[in-house]
């Protein structure tokens, strides 16, 4: 059943790189190769993608990088050393190598960002797709729920959740994922509403596909463009939220450390050892910036009509 998996040809808006369509006259191009061509032309987005690749590889492989110090190894004699050849980012007040701490912190921050986003993706896409496809009263009810949840000052509930229950990583994933799925549900619902009456859905139904198959095999794949864009923008949002919670002492707990906890710890010793804030802060800001650049580039490439809101 491949009917419907092929997305409709993108309509290019006047100022959105109409030249991309002119590159290969006559040659049929899928949405994806078209988008890829447009993305590659955006140098900032490519650079951002490269940076993220390097950063996430280094962070993921941090425990196995030869020569990188153990982030937990304390050496009070070398406490709070300024950056040097042996310790490029310096050491903290307990003599732990800051470069190692930043890379290991990145592991946690990126992991939280990705898993939190995945949670929001699963809930949001399912919720939005079902609401949009079923329509009618179910849609009304489901979207009313989203409206009410939107109005909740979520962060307070997350704070309460983390203060009153365990401050485990799992709780953090759940709490952050639960905050982020609402916009995703709205985006997917809007897409599904406009897709469900198209002929490829009719064709699938005529071939005997059930509702579940139509929604998840035929309609949802066609919403991928906006979903990918929004996902790219959700990851930095989740990383930021985690850092925010860690800053209040509610996020990642010692001995684990994320960028948020590193910045938070560093801020306490700001007057004495300013590099303890600047390096983790820089690593986090650059990563967030790269995600935002990539998300912007992807939006221009995949979703020429996309509205510029959400994220940040």
């Amino acid at each position: 059943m491949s009917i419907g998996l092929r997305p409709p040809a993108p309509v290019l808006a006047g100022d959105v790189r109409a030249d991309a369509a002119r590159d290969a006259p006559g040659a049929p191009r899928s949405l994806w190769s078209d988008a890829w061509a447009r993305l590659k032309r955006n140098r900032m987005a490519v650079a951002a993608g490269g940076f993220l690749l390097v950063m996430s590889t280094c962070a993921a492989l941090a425990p196995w990088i030869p020569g990188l110090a153990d982030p937990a190894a304390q050496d009070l004699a070398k406490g709070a050393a300024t950056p040097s050849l042996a310790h490029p980012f310096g050491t903290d007040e307990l003599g732990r190598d800051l470069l190692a701490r930043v890379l290991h912190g990145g592991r946690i921050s990126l992991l939280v960002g990705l898993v939190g986003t995945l949670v929001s993706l699963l809930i949001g896409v399912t919720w939005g797709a079902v609401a949009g496809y079923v329509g009618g009263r179910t849609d009304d009810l489901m979207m009313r729920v989203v409206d009410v949840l939107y109005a909740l000052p979520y962060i307070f509930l997350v704070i309460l959740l983390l203060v009153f229950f365990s401050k485990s990583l799992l709780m953090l994933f759940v709490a952050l994922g639960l905050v982020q799925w609402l916009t995703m549900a709205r985006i997917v619902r809007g897409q599904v509403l406009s897709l469900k009456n198209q002929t490829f859905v009719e064709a699938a139904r005529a071939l005997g596909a059930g509702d579940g198959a139509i929604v998840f095999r035929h309609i949802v794949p066609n919403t991928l463009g906006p979903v990918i864009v929004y996902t790219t923008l959700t990851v930095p949002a989740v990383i930021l939220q985690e850092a925010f919670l860690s800053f209040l002492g509610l996020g990642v707990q010692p001995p684990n450390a994320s960028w948020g906890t590193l910045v938070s710890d560093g801020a306490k010793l700001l007057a004495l050892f300013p590099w303890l804030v600047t390096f983790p802060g820089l690593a986090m800001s650059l990563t967030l910036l790269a995600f935002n650049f990539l998300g912007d580039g992807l939006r221009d490439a995949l979703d020429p009509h996309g509205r510029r809101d959400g994220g940040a």
Partner: protein
Amino acid sequence: MTTFVLRRVLLMVPTLLVIATLTFVLMRLAPGGPFMSEKDIPAKAKQELLSRYGLDRPLHVQYLAFLANAVKLEFGPSYKYPDRQVKEIIAQGFVVSAELGGWALLLALLVGVPVGTLAAIRQNRALDHVSMTLALAGVSVPSFVLAPVLVIGFSLTLLVLPAALWTGPESRVLPVLALCVSYVAYIARLTRAGMLEVLRQDYIRTARAKGLAERVVVAKHALKLGILPVVSYLGPAAARIIMGSIVIEQIFAIPGLGRYLVVGAVNRDYTLVMGVVLFYASFLLLLNLLVDLAYGWLDPRVELA
């Protein structure tokens, strides 16, 4: 119009009820209680404490009593500061938080909208690229990273501004600056996108064809519709500024509402947390209503129904 406002106000009731219930349930499900730390108090005194705050009554009675009191804005005395009513704490904290957040939002609008407009007029030129790259950078630097950097620069190196507290006017500068930068950046981006959309429209061409000065076309005709995305962002922005001010108040030791919320949650100060959460929620709901009204006023095509 009146029915719209009425409907929205009525819709706020279930939302607030959900918030109140969730907060109540969360706090009571959680292990531990407000008097856990005072281990050595005699059983009788503890019993008296519990009955004084009504904590010995059945849960559903407590819940109903809480709801009834919340309607009257009576949350009772704080557990942590027994001689102070939650009402007073909120009133005191809110004045400080509102000043911090208000300045940040005002500054964000006063800088963000002009920058975004200029970028849109000069689309794809140097000014546009530079300001939008800066804006994206601004969006990406969290306030709690920016705040320490500002403190290093202005308080510890240049020694021109205080590093903490909320005393004189110069103590406002760094917290407001740290809080507002990402909103300046975001509002600039939104304004640019909105203006680009509007500047292409027919009525703008008509205005130009009439021979109006470009300044008038942009400032009077285009801007009114172009800042619609910004207006609709004001609701979420206020919510985020409140969240951001929690951290900023922590960093600069500012006695605002956000600080009381965190302190209250950590100390299991039930009445204080409930009061602050409900207060913030109602405040945000009201703000969103105002934003929707402003939307209808700016764009007559929007039907408020």
